[in-house]
């Protein structure tokens, strides 16, 4: 007991010593001008690395407040591309030449204007340095047309690829500061960009950005944006206490644990990315080359149970791979709002139609039996959801599927090589063509050879025909028509089966700053990774009445 008492004393002593420290915190004025962003997935410290075209995943966060791209993707409008630093982006008839009008009156934070030369330099970087093509650019050449116009050329119609100009990894850089630097060693410690903020002070555990008063897009209600590192759990508590105004994290149970405690100020928002978590079949490997097997397995995925344990009721994915919330106008009427319930009888009929039986937990046809395995990323604890699917297949079909978790990088390698039966992937992309382009037959590789996309090795002439039409036009009416052709193919032939929709999760404490968009009514998503959207978010906030 004495030992315990002593410990208590030690703890108390430390506590008193510390509460003194807590009181000495400067509060009031500084905080009132500041919005605090809690970054939950960036570790405990930051490094000063504004080499924004480098491929590191943990560069200094929120650099998209300093550097801006030519365009943005509008997720409130079917994921279409809208101009940003460009005044316009226009294709010629064939779709092989894109003319970019550079916005006038844009200045870098050192006062220099953004010129066509800067744009040509920035767009040329990935051409000159293929190692730094993080944006995945596909154009072949860049040329300056006049002082405010730049043109890029493509080998084949680039209609569906204009979204690359909205990538935060393809920012507009000041040529005179970047052209002499070695991208392999330069960390760009003092960033100069066109964005609304400049770096005010950098410390390993806090980054302070200051709003520019000469930003081309307008003025901001706050003076500072502060970025602090936190963990997912700690971030929740800090949001509850109002120490953080804004964070990005999935919070199952947020309704009871957060929103209910102050419905006015505590906002938990989910914005559909337009993509989904899907089960992918290795269609180069039997028995998954048989559409009946694919349908039977897809029909018995307990999507409702999975979203229930995720605490996200109503987010089951529809059958097309296009998410209602983003592609409402693009979906065939019969697929709108469609929820796929477990249909054991239907699945059994499918197996029978294909000539399959299940014996001893194995799939049997013509004397050959198969024991499927489902692989998934164990780093996010996906195993529990795989278990739910495995249990369902067992009870509905008597089929024993083996769960096989693997860490992300290993899983990804086996997916690229086609060494899997069933696997879980994120499907999605910018626009319908972005979602479906992964089914292109020419991207399919034999098992054992690395494939960049089309991990499921899908080869289907009807798909390729529909895709070619979808990629060859920029006319919205025709795009919708071809996208619907693709929907029918996906629903009928099931090259993959969506499970639940993916979201950007935004947690907000609006005690200090109000005027946030909501998933019900938004024209920009308050998600920093989307670049200009966070600029629009911050610009339209208002100081809360105290």
């Amino acid at each position, binding site marked *: 007991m004495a030992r315990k008492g002593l410990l208590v004393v030690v703890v108390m002593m430390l506590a008193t010593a510390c509460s003194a420290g807590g009181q000495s915190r400067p509060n009031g004025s500084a905080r009132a001008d500041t919005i605090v962003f809690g970054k939950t997935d960036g570790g405990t410290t930051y490094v000063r690395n504004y080499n924004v075209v480098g491929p590191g995943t943990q560069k200094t966060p929120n650099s998209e407040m300093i550097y801006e791209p030519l365009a943005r993707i509008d997720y409130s409008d079917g994921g279409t591309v809208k101009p940003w630093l460009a005044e316009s982006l226009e294709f010629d008839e064939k779709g092989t030449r894109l003319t970019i009008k550079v916005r006038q009156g844009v200045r870098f934070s050192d006062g220099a204007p953004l010129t066509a030369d800067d744009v040509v330099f920035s767009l040329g970087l990935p051409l000159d340095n293929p190692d730094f093509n993080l944006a995945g650019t596909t154009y072949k050449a860049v040329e300056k047309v006049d002082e405010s116009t730049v043109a890029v050329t493509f080998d084949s119609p680039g209609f569906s690829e204009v979204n690359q100009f909205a990538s935060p990894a393809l920012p507009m850089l000041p040529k005179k500061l970047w052209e002499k630097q070695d991208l392999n060693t330069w960390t760009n410690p003092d960033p100069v960009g066109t964005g609304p903020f400049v770096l005010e002070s950098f410390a390993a555990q806090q980054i302070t950005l200051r709003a520019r008063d000469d930003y081309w897009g307008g003025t901001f209600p706050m003076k500072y944006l502060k970025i602090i590192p936190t963990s997912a759990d700690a971030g929740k508590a800090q949001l509850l206490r109002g120490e953080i105004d804004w964070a990005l994290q999935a919070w199952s149970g947020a309704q009871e644990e957060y929103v209910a405690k102050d419905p006015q100020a505590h906002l938990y928002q989910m914005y559909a990315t337009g993509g989904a978590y899907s089960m992918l079949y290795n269609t180069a490997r039997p028995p998954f080359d048989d559409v009946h097997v694919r349908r039977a397995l897809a029909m018995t995925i307990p999507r409702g149970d999975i979203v229930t*344990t995720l605490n996200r009721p109503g987010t089951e994915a529809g059958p097309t791979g296009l998410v209602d919330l983003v592609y409402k106008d693009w979906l065939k009427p019969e697929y709108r709002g469609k929820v796929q319930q477990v249909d054991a009888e239907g699945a059994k009929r499918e197996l029978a139609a294909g000539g399959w039986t299940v014996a001893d937990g194995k799939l049997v046809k013509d004397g050959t039996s198969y024991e499927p395995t489902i692989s998934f990323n164990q780093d996010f*604890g996906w195993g529990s959801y795989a278990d739910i699917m495995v249990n369902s297949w067992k009870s509905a079909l008597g089929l024993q599927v083996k769960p096989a*978790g*693997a*860490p992300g990088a290993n899983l990804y390698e086996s997916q690229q090589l086609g060494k899997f039966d069933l696997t879980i992937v994120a499907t999605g992309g910018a626009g319908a063509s972005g979602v479906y382009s992964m089914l292109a037959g020419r991207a399919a590789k034999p098992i054992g050879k690395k494939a960049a996309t089309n991990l499921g090795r899908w080869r289907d002439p009807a798909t390729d025909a529909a895709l070619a039409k979808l990629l060859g036009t920029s006319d919205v009416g025709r795009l919708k028509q071809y996208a619907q052709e693709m929907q029918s193919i996906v629903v009928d032939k099931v090259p993959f089966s969506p499970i639940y929709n993916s979201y950007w999760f935004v947690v907000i404490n609006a005690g200090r700053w109000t005027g946030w968009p909501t998933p019900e009514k938004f024209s920009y998503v308050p998600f920093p990774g989307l670049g200009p959207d966070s600029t629009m978010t911050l610009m339209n906030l208002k100081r809360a009445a105290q």
Partner: protein
Amino acid sequence: MKVRVGVAIIAFFALVAIFGDWFSRAVLGLDPRANDIQAIAQPPSGEHLLGTTQFGQDVLAQVIAGASGSMFVGFLAAAIGTTLAVLVGATAGYFGGGVDGALNFLTNLFLVMPVLPLIFIVAGYLQGTGLWTIALIIGLFGWAGGARTLRAQAMSVAGRDFVRAMRLLGESNRRLIFAEVLPHLTGLIASMFLHAMIGAVLAEAGLAFLGISDSGAISWGTMIQSAQQQSAVLRGLWWWFVPPGLCIALIGTAAALVNFGVDEVANPKLRVTRTQRGRMVRSQAA
């Protein structure tokens, strides 16, 4: 008394590890992997005695299944580690000379190597390959302390007159080691084994917490990790993370209790008075 309590606890968990799966399925009617979607993250109740996880899985069934996972790793890792310790330690101590020099160097190398980060790195690369691998790694990196102790003991036994005499009479070295030297060290080896086992159970839990585990298997470590991933601590789902942690602590205490007792028998210095209860100081043996 201490030994009895300790042995009883360990025996209990061993029984759970071996028969628990049958018991929870046949008697309790529970499946550690079954999802009761109607009962998600529920506190203990009549239907789920220890409550349920975020995935509607029964915590009691998971603790029982976790016992076999954790004990399996503990047992296998301890077996590997102890075998290596005996092989290296006893051989070095018995033969002396150049053999000793080489083996002792190896032992010292593993002693000074930062083992936890090393295990962490190796296991990290291998992750996803099952409890076997985890046990193997823990065993392979955790034998040096035991080998050092055994070397010293083997040295002193090998130096005794009767062993020397038998050696002179032409008795084979192998027979001498197995029939004369090792039997003198059984108490020590048994206590080392227990230590290694609890060490391995703790190590498995620690690695699982760091995300290095077999996601297909259930152990106490993976339970705590899963709870942590779902913010069980912050959300106050104590019934999810307290039972596995307590089980680990109980096994550890039991192993320590047994060692107390063993030491009293093995080390006369700690037994000077009847009232004194002590534990052999490991460094003494070195």
